[in-house]
């Protein structure tokens, strides 16, 4: 048996202590238990809970929604810009989800609430392409911090039923880019319903074609029909109108790819591109069926904007990684929570 000396005992304990200090220190730093405080996904999760309350089983934002299915018919024109499989002439299936902005899955529909459309083309194949689009001409924030600040400032004061004006004016002072974006959005009032809304990528992506040419592109789905007017005074007025309209036939949108020019803002979704930019008509999105959120349909899809096919690449827009991270946190949280029925029950919508 080796004789233990005091020196060797201290040496061993010291080395173990030093190793554990470095090991646990690195663990704590990576987990942001120590070190400089900054935005994490949990900051956003807490923010959504503060502003909207906790609604187990639902998305933390765009909580109210309905599921749609259909296909995209490509005319092949998109191949000029991208080698993505979606642009090969022919038909690609798609699943999607219409939604309203906000974390309360039971809120009443309001025309001014931002409308979302999540799409997952070629789901669940390796060539799939997911996107989350809005019926806005630009996004309201250009940074994750801006989004977070606006989220908190927009919290409804229970006494007045409106956001606190002091908090809102403080936000406006700190975020002139959002004030400018709001002014621009006001010039494009919302349409009658989901069916006649234009849904835009807002964020810029790089399209890469067969020759390897990278082009900055923004895109939008432009409606090919008018919307039947929502019945006033009903909680789900916009969603019900969408359900009724889809019962009488499919809805269509034309996919327009807008080609950026050198100098156009790439990493700032609050800034518009000049109106004369060339567009490419890439084909038609047809939504044929609508269904209630349920296990295994688009309810269980995270419309992470970074699920991109070969031929589409992310830009440096800081919102992209942040959205991917926060969507992942929301997905993890809600998949582990008990579920309750969604507000929009397709079968219960009166004819």
């Amino acid at each position, binding site marked *: 048996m080796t004789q233990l000396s005091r020196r060797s005992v201290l040496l061993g304990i010291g080395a173990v202590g030093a190793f554990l200090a470095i090991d646990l220190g690195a663990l704590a730093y990576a987990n942001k238990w120590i070190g400089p405080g900054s935005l994490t*996904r949990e900051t956003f999760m807490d923010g959504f809970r503060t502003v909207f309350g906790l609604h187990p089983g639902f998305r933390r934002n765009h909580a109210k929604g309905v599921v749609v299915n259909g296909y995209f018919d490509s005319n092949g024109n998109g191949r000029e810009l991208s080698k993505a499989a979606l642009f090969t002439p022919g038909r690609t299936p798609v699943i999607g989800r219409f939604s309203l902005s906000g974390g309360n899955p039971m809120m009443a529909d309001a025309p001014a609430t931002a409308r979302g459309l999540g799409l997952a083309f070629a789901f669940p194949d*390796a060539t799939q392409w997911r996107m989350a689009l809005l019926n806005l001409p630009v996004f309201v924030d250009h940074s994750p911090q801006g989004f977070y600040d606006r989220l908190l400032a927009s919290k409804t004061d229970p006494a007045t039923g409106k956001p606190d004006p002091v908090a809102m004016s403080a936000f406006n002072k700190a975020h002139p880019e959002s004030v400018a974006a709001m002014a621009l959005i006001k010039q494009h009032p919302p349409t009658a319903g989901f069916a006649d809304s234009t849904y835009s990528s807002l964020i810029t992506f790089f399209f890469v074609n067969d020759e390897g040419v990278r082009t900055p592109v923004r895109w939008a789905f432009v409606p090919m029909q008018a919307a039947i007017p929502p019945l006033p005074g009903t909680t789900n007025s916009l969603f019900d109108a969408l359900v009724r309209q889809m019962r009488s036939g499919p809805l269509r949108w034309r996919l327009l790819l807008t080609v950026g020019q050198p100098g156009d803002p790439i990493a700032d979704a609050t800034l518009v591109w000049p109106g004369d930019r060339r567009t490419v008509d890439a084909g038609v999105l047809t939504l044929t069926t609508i269904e209630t959120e349920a296990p295994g349909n688009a309810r269980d*899809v995270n419309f992470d904007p970074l699920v991109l096919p070969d031929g589409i690449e*992310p830009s440096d827009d800081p919102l992209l*990684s942040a959205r991917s991270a926060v969507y992942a946190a929301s997905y993890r949280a809600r998949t582990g929570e008990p579920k309750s029925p969604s507000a929009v029950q397709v079968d219960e919508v009166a004819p």
Partner: protein
Amino acid sequence: MTAPARYPLRTRILHWLTAVLVFSMLLIGFAMVNSIGSYASLRAVHMSLGIIVLLIVVVRAANRFTHRVPTLPGTVGWLEHKVVIGSELLLYALLLAQPLVGWAMVSATGKPVVVFGSVSLPRIAPFDADLYFTLRQTHSLLAYTLVVVIAAHVSAVLLHTLTLRDRMLSRMAFANSATSERASVHSAIGEHSNAASNTGRHGRTRRHR
């Protein structure tokens, strides 16, 4: 005192490669789920390294059967010997399970599993949100278990080497490997050299008490 027997060079290389990769993977994993701006890029690195770890662990597990294990120092008693065997098995199991759980977890979200920028791997689990959640929780649980087991592994080797002065670390080290390399090569090819015959099934010295 003669130089202790060592693991074959290929085993030592695989060991330290795993050590560096797994340490990086744990840090990247913890950092990415707390990062907003770097999440996307860290996630891509994490998934690619995860596949490399999986490949290396499979190679290591196969390699483990190609050679005998160098003798453990006499300071390892029978109870600790059982712990050594158990913790080695546990580490192999964890290192094999963790990348597979990660791969299956991404598969269950219905997302394509893309590594190294553009290599598309098959999905190994069905699209199922409940399954995803179970796998996601398991992935975190295994990560923290790895942190604890690796910390115990390193601490035990440090205490043996520095406090008991039994040259435990030398079995896996590279320095001054000339003398011991011969011994471990013999044991690797199963010759009845002194080193090999002195080694029990799990590398414990057969000692007469």
